[in-house]
């Protein structure tokens, strides 16, 4: 069996294991084993990938496998990875792993919760390894649907409304995407033999007319998931109602599906249209970056703050992708990684704090640092990563994006880049505001004085994420080079 297919097989086996489980400890055993395996597999893949590259393998995609699935429409189950997918797989595994520990005491219906959780993971992994448009889209949908149930059943607050809103808006995006993908399919292959294979489509190229039509559709389709302004409003409500691990997975990984899709499908397959139309989306994403940050400044619900912060940070991902040069795109992928990790950390911590104080309103909390120092320090680190402190991942990503964006010397790009850079100040404002209110100062509610600090399983989750954030932040060289080195096919497409 192909190495990559294991990424889909393991979550499926976990499903089976869960189905057979009878009690909580068995469920946990299955989940921890599976998630650890996936994490190990991701690191293994990373090692194997770097090994292949070091050995001089310059193929665009490695570890490829291809099986015909539905011959009449030329649909294949085709997989393969480059440095970007490897990075995304690593991110997914880290978040699945920590997500399991963050939902250690999920209640009610733990088994069902983890069933959907695994299904979601299957979709995510499948998406990142696919190089066939149809397979990709199928996994994409598999990842989206469980969200509805996960929020609707295990959520908090206006959960039905939030679940419905999130799912419908993302489905709206999928509809555009489906049209886009079909459009690409029917315009592919000059000799009447249409194909869904990304590499083949890119090789042959698409007619410019089709590109102009389908680029916006695919970009917006994926963009909805990447919190593209003005299609981002599912995010605050969705995140606010979602249970901890779901928020982590959703903001940490699913939103990356959007960025990855924009990059892999929209830009890679339709480079000419991307160059022509990028200005429209640059304006929208430029707005996202600043608008999200400003909105976050005045929110009072921890999850809303983080959701708007995600709008800003994910906006920067799409912004950087649209800069269409190697440095900025490297920055975009780094930003996906960095945002995935730190937002997962944020949501994990918020969930843990909420589980103790039963409120997410920062006005009702204060002085928590003294009561729960571990969670407090974790929150400060997440905050510092978010505001781009050197030594943590956010800095590396943002700086790469800004340096890359600055390579464009025309006024339009320059102005937008300058606008985007102001986000580093606004981010500092809302992060420090929350840290100051939530953790420092005096205790607002005397009942909080008796609360406990993090338990062991919560610590595993938090520490793993912090290590990952610090590792990227302190030694960015290797991962940045891996991504940088995988971008040549796109750059070649763009300069063709």
């Amino acid at each position, binding site marked *: 069996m192909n190495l990559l297919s294991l990424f889909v097989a393991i979550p499926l086996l976990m499903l089976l294991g869960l189905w057979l489980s009878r009690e909580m400890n068995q469920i946990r055993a299955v989940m921890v084993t599976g998630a650890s395996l996936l994490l190990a597999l991701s690191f293994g893949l990373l090692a194997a990938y770097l090994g292949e590259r070091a050995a001089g393998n310059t193929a665009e995609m490695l570890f490829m496998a291809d099986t015909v699935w539905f011959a009449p429409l030329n649909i294949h189950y085709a997989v393969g990875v480059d440095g970007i997918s490897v990075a995304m797989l690593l991110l997914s595994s880290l978040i699945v792993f920590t997500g399991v520990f963050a939902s250690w005491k999920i209640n009610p219906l733990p088994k069902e919760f983890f069933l959907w959780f695994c299904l979601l993971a299957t979709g995510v992994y499948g998406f990142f390894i696919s190089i066939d448009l149809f397979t990709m889209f199928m996994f994409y949908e598999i990842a989206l649907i469980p969200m509805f149930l996960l929020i609707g059943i295990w959520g908090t607050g206006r959960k039905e409304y939030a679940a419905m809103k999130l799912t419908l808006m993302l489905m709206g995006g999928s509809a555009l995407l489906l049209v886009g993908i079909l459009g690409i399919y029917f315009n592919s292959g000059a000799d009447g033999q249409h194909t869904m294979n990304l590499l083949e489509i890119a090789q042959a190229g698409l007619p410019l007319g089709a590109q102009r039509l389908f680029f916006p559709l695919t970009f917006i389709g994926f963009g909805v998931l990447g919190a593209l302004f*003005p299609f981002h409003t599912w995010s605050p*409500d969705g995140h606010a109602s979602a249970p901890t691990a779901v928020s982590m997975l959703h903001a940490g990984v699913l939103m990356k599906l959007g960025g990855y899709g924009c990059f892999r499908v929209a830009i890679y397959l339709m480079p000419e249209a991307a160059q022509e139309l990028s200005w429209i989306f640059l304006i929208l994403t430029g707005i996202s970056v600043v*608008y999200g940050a400003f909105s976050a400044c005045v929110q009072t619900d921890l999850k809303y703050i983080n959701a708007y912060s995600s709008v800003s940070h994910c906006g920067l991902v799409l912004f950087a992708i649209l800069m269409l040069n190697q440095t900025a795109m490297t920055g975009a992928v780094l930003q996906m990684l960095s945002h995935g990790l730190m937002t997962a950390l944020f949501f994990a911590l918020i969930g843990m704090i909420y589980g103790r104080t039963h409120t997410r309103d920062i006005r009702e909390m204060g002085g928590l640092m003294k009561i729960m120092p571990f969670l407090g320090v974790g929150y400060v680190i997440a905050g510092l990563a978010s505001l781009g402190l*050197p030594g943590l991942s956010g800095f590396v990503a943002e700086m790469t994006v800004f340096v890359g964006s600055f390579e464009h010397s025309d006024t339009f790009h320059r102005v937008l880049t300058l606008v985007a850079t102001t986000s580093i*100040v606004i981010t500092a404002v809302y992060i420090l505001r929350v840290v100051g209110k939530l953790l420092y100062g005096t205790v607002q509610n005397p009942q909080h004085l008796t609360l406990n600090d993090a338990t062991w399983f919560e610590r595993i989750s938090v520490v793993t994420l912090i290590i990952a954030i610090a590792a990227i932040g302190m030694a960015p060289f290797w991962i940045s080079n891996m991504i940088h080195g995988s971008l040549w096919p796109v750059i070649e497409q763009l300069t063709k």
Partner: protein
Amino acid sequence: MEYTLFILLLPLLTFFGLGLFGPKMKPCVAGIIGTVSLAIAAALAYFTAWDYFSAPRVDDVYATVVPFHVEWLHFTDKLHIDLGILLDPISVMMLVVITTVSLMVHIYSMGYMKGERGFQRYYAFLSLFSFSMLGLVVATNIFQTYIFWELVGVSSYLLIGFYYTKPEAVAASKKAFIVTRFADLGFLIGILLLSYFTKTFSFELLTSGDHSIFADAAGVTFLGGSVISWAVALVFIGCAGKSAMFPLHIWLPDAMEGPTPVSALIHAATMVVAGVYLVARLFPVYYFEAPEVLVMVAVVGAFTSLYAAVVACVQTDIKRVLAFSTISQIGFMMVALGVSGMEGHAGLGYMASMFHLFTHAMFKALLFLGAGAIIHAVHSNEMSHMGGLRRKMPITHITFLIACLAIAGIPPFSGFFSKDEILAACFEFSPVMGWTMSFIAALTAFYMFRLYYNIFWGKPAQHEHEPHEAPANMTVPLIVLAAITCIAGFIPFGHFITADGISYNIHLDWQVAGTSIVIACIAIGVATGMYRTGTSPVPGRLAERFRGVHTAAYHRFYIDEFYQFVTHKLIFGGISRPIAWFDRHVIDGAMNGLAWVAQKTSYAIRSLQSGQIQQYAFVFLLGTLIILVLVLYV
């Protein structure tokens, strides 16, 4: 000279060690680990200085040494962030200054912070700060400077907010971080512009004096200024933020909420001079490519210096007086750089600035540590709670007096020599600048002795506990720093550090020096008359007579209120809230509206699917009839 790497690594490892395992340690163990590790770093720094300056000069210049260098993050083939250590005269000097003051603060804090909650955390943060500051000064490229620039910013944030249960401290730490972050945005854009046109971050290339790397920028102008001028002006905004230049100075007085040793280390001796250091580091770029920006540096420095000196004259919190005095003195350093030329005697300002940076670090740290000892003794920052302490705290008194004399510019203390060189450079630049700075020097002498007399002379205030001298671990650093202050003026500074690197013999210009001594003595005399006894009616009458100015100066000319208005009313109230409202009601409203329309439409057409077979048959027949009619008759 690879061992210099350990000067950085030791504090870093100490930070991680104390950060991770500190809570499990006994407080005093953590303190000792921190102090010992810094003592080793300091010893290494002294050895580096000795090693470096004893090496033979090449072409009359001390060679630049890069003992360590790695690529850290790759952007493009030409642009990559490197981490490394660059040793040249100014960075070596800074290594000595930072490790010395930091070591003194480490020792002093053992006494000052004794019994405080979070003692281990305090030492961890001190180590983090020391590491960041050392990394900043040895940076080989401007992006490395930026990295450590942010790290010192966060260490400063953590230490100002050390007493995190105190709302003022939390607010002050937030303010310090955000104001400097705002300035750093300028710095970042400056770096981006500079590197876009020069295709390099490296200091060695930028300051090599080779004009060709700026060739790409030739002819590119924006609003009348060359693009390189804009870039370095933006970098200067970052410097102004860190070095608390007007109008970005507002964070520094508030930063005094942090523990006093921290104020001595970060907000007096080291971090706040980072801006001066960076301008000095990029001096050739300013001088050759953007001379008009250098004039701006001088003007900003002079104005800030004047403003801060005036404000310092009326403050009553002793740490605030010292904070404004710091701002004013940094203004002196900036002015000196701004008026400096490059070669030989013309480069006097540059040398003077670095000299003043050195001497100021020592005597200002001494002043703050002395103030700490006083605060420790009387449990208050207010002058009115002090008075007559000279007999109760003799060591603090003598060392504080030495520092006051030094900052006032009385020979043979170090401040006299460095300030005199600055004044000489200013007079050569323009008499107006010279007299302005002399006037500020007089103000300095006045407010410092106002402070001195109010603390140590006059009526003793009533105290719950009788004030007594600080313990040895606090007085020893005072004595060491006082000793340095006494002798540092005789260091042949021009031999080590000059703008062009070629040795320069300092000779006192007695005309300037004589004038400045006379001015300082007069100012001290006035302060003596007004404040020595503590009963003179003059200060009160003056305050009454110039009530408007006095009140305005006491409130720092309402700059803080202005910022408060801009941030809260304009940015929060005028931008953030409307955006948040717009998002919830317009954008999200549109989405909900869409859903609402879809739902209403469904309800409206629901009756068509009634499930009644008769109705379906009727509609079916009707439809068929209509089609028939259409087909036959149209």
